[in-house]
């Protein structure tokens, strides 16, 4: 799904400011943690900048559904179950979970979000 140029541009600016990365590093496919080096505290900063830039409210649980990732109904042997994946898709329709689905280890969830995912999330909030 294509994201608007305006949203991408503002998200890119927020990430450059919060993470100290160069604009050419913030590509749509770049992952927040693996490629851009975001650490947990950076997400507080990123969320703040997105809220300010777009006039939206971002709940941490939207981006990190901790309840799903820690509940035994949805996680077995360190992997998210089919029911858990279905729940994640329901809660995060803006996220591309296709790669994660192939080997849904909970420990890999942190590196799931891409810049495109974040843009689509923002678009869902301003729609």
């Amino acid at each position, binding site marked *: 799904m294509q994201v608007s140029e305006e949203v991408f541009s503002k998200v890119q600016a927020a990430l450059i*400011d919060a993470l100290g990365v160069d604009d050419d590093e913030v590509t749509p496919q770049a992952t927040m943690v693996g490629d851009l080096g975001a650490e947990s505290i950076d997400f*507080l*900063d990123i969320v*703040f900048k997105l809220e300010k830039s777009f006039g939206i409210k971002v709940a*941490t649980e939207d981006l990190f559904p901790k309840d799903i990732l820690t509940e035994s109904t949805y996680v077995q042997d360190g992997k998210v179950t089919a029911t858990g994946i279905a729940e994640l898709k329901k809660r995060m329709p803006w996220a591309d979970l296709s790669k994660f689905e192939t080997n849904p280890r909970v420990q890999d969830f942190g590196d799931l979000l891409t810049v495109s995912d974040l843009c689509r999330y923002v678009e869902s909030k301003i729609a």
Partner: protein
Amino acid sequence: MRWFWIDRFIEFVRNTRATTIKNVSFGEEPIDDYLPGHPHYPHSLIIEGMAQTGGLLVSEEGGFRTKTVLAKVSKAVFHELIVPGDQIFLTAVVQDKKPSGAIIEGTVTVDGQVRAELELSFAFLDDRFGETGLFPAEDLLRTLRILKLFDVAVDQNGNRIHAPEHMLEAERQAPQGFVHSRAISQSKPA
């Protein structure tokens, strides 16, 4: 060395803003040791002073139980050196506060002129980092009194903020030495 880089609170509004002052003295070791022959107040200590001002501001609600640590210096711009004899005003304004942490914008002035602009992020540590606070409650209470925080602290409606009961209780249970220091910190000049 005591690691306090603020001297006194002169303004404190819960979860909103706080201002502290810091008097820079040539008698302080880091002033001359940082760059011998060119005494000035190191930028790192300006950041620390703002972290202490902002950190106490964002952790006050709930009785200073929040385990608050400086997690990120997002912005630090310094315009002019601060030298012995200067009185620094450090103002922290809360930009955002969530269960996981908070962001403050800091402005440092001397004689009404902006000397530094900061943006700091604080993380609130959860119980994985221990169930008790980072500092003994009675010790922190003594420090807060010395910093005159309760002399100026108010909530958003202008109501005075008093020392939390759990800290007063910790003080009552503390060894006698704390009773002595409490008497000193509460004594007023004639």
